[in-house]
């Protein structure tokens, strides 16, 4: 790790990349291979509009993967991210559409709801010593049900809050550089990833993330209040999930209360493809981002190639195994 103190944007970027290479994010090579392969296979793949579609498709899963990375590094797992995202979206819908509050309050509500739910999971895990798998499985079901209850099993539309759909669909970058109409959702993904990577590598919270995943008992014996930190980490992850809730709601211009199941597996898969170990102690945000991109490129590419849907699944499964295998080989070669 580097020891610079000034924080110019460049050094920040280089730091994140350095932190990434430090964790040997070799999954990157698989991503490049996939991109090249699909470009050769279909002339339609490498269009700007399709690249943006891929990034857009990554945004929600990417943010969820970032959140779940934190929890996985502590040695835990979070199965509730999918339905928690939905729950946050529904709460935002209640605040904005049912209560007619201003946009900013809706944004705040989503993040606060996520943080609250996260801290509940964290409390179950830290204080009640419930295995993370069960604690977050329980939360997953509870939040799934509550989303339906609160929304009355109907989608909540944001038609009365015109600015809302811009959160994900607008393009600040596109306004400045019309040639690069990158949607805000993608920008938000990168900002979230950057900030989280910074927290993970440069702050006490991040340090305890790794420490807890490495040897929780030893951290506790060193007099650290591990319970409190664990709750904080789950809460942070929850807040990030809240952002994912905003992104998906904004993209669909509605809070879809039934959505969410299955997203947790995809997010965890992205994290693991990115080289983070499920046994904790090791991992990187950059890796998870690349993992999420690999999955999005794979799905999009196979669709653009018009591969029959049943074969898409087969090929996706095989390529995921191969990508991780290639990654293991490169890692072995590097060490």
């Amino acid at each position: 790790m580097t020891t610079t103190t000034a924080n110019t944007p460049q050094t920040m970027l280089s730091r994140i990349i350095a932190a990434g290479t430090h964790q040997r994010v070799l999954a990157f090579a698989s991503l490049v291979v996939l991109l090249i392969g699909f470009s050769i296979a279909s002339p339609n793949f490498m269009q700007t509009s399709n690249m943006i579609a891929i990034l857009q498709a990554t945004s929600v899963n990417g943010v969820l993967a970032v959140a779940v990375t934190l929890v996985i590094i502590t040695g835990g797992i979070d199965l509730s991210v999918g339905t928690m995202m939905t729950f946050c979206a529904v709460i935002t819908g209640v605040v904005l559409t049912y209560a007619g509050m201003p946009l900013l309050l809706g944004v705040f509500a989503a993040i606060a709801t996520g943080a609250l739910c996260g801290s509940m999971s964290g409390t179950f895990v830290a204080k009640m010593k419930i295995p993370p798998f069960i604690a977050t499985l329980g939360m997953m079901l509870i939040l799934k049900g509550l989303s339906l209850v609160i929304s009355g099993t109907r989608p909540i539309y944001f038609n009365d809050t015109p600015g809302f759909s811009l959160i994900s669909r607008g393009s600040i970058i596109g306004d400045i550089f019309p040639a690069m109409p990158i949607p805000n959702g993608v920008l938000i993904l990168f900002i979230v990833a950057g900030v989280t990577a910074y927290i993970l590598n440069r702050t006490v919270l991040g340090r305890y993330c790794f420490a807890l995943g490495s040897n929780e008992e030893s951290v506790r014996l060193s007099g650290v209040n591990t319970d409190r930190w664990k709750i904080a980490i789950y809460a942070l992850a929850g807040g990030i999930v809240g952002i994912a809730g905003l992104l998906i709601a904004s993209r669909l211009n509605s809070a879809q209360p039934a959505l969410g199941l299955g997203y947790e597996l995809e997010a965890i898969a992205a994290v693991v493809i990115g080289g983070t170990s499920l046994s904790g102690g090791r991992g990187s945000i950059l890796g998870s981002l690349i993992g999420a991109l690999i999955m999005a490129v794979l799905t999009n590419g196979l669709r653009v190639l018009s591969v029959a849907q049943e074969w898409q699944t087969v090929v996706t499964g095989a390529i995921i195994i191969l990508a991780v295998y290639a990654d293991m080989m490169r890692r072995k070669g590097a060490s």
Partner: protein
Amino acid sequence: AQDIYIPLISKGFQHQFWQAVKSGADQAAAEFGVRITFEGPDNETMVDRQIDMLAAALANNPSAIGFAALDSQAAIPLLQQAADAGIPVIAFDSGVESDIPATTATTDNVAAAALAADKMAELIGGAGKVAVVAHDQTSRTGIDRRDGFLNQIEANYPDIEVVSVQYGAGDQLQSTEVAKAILTANPDLVGMFGTNEGSAIGIVNAIREMATEGVTIIGYDSGKAQTDAIREGLMAGAITQNPVGIGYETVKAAVAAMNGEELPAIIDTGFYYYDQSNIDDAEIQAVLYD
């Protein structure tokens, strides 16, 4: 010359119903000499996955698009993009609340479920307790069929009480367990309505495993297990849509729209009630799949 490419983005893929739609679309594709692809998400909650599919379809510069919206609002920006590019959009199965689609090939699910309610009332003598095993709590088809049935009962059959509505995700096994629990809780049940193939077969399985008698079952859609149950007399009858017709009409309308032809706002592909008496009629056989 570039070939004519029409991607169909549906609400599902593996389910028999959607496969029947696909076969209709394939039929039309062969007939009109166009190339189609058919894709749909794993289940009807995955609204954003469907949007991603639509985005990937647009990347291939299609000649026209068929789209069965899970949530019509969510897709509007992409549909607008298609409209701007001069790509005609044909809605199928359920409508898109927008004037972008050139036409909509669909079944009136509310009316179809109301017909199921009428048949149920007729068979149970207009009185007694009935229950519904639905396939989904939030999807358009799930809501329309459930409410179509419930509202018809409420409006016209005061002596029929709907004691339970539960959901089995269209999964046959889960629907079986749901139906068994309903039967356990309501030993005096006289009728059950299943809102799609999986739900209906779940009810049949439950009745079979519990050896319950005196419960009138009305199903929805077709499939071999369901048609067999009707032939055996275990199931009284079922509503069927015309999925093959939906697929066929969608592609046909897409070709027409490309050629600038006028299209009606709605292409109603119709629905039918079938039971032991008419299951082998040619008209019914044409819309059943197994």
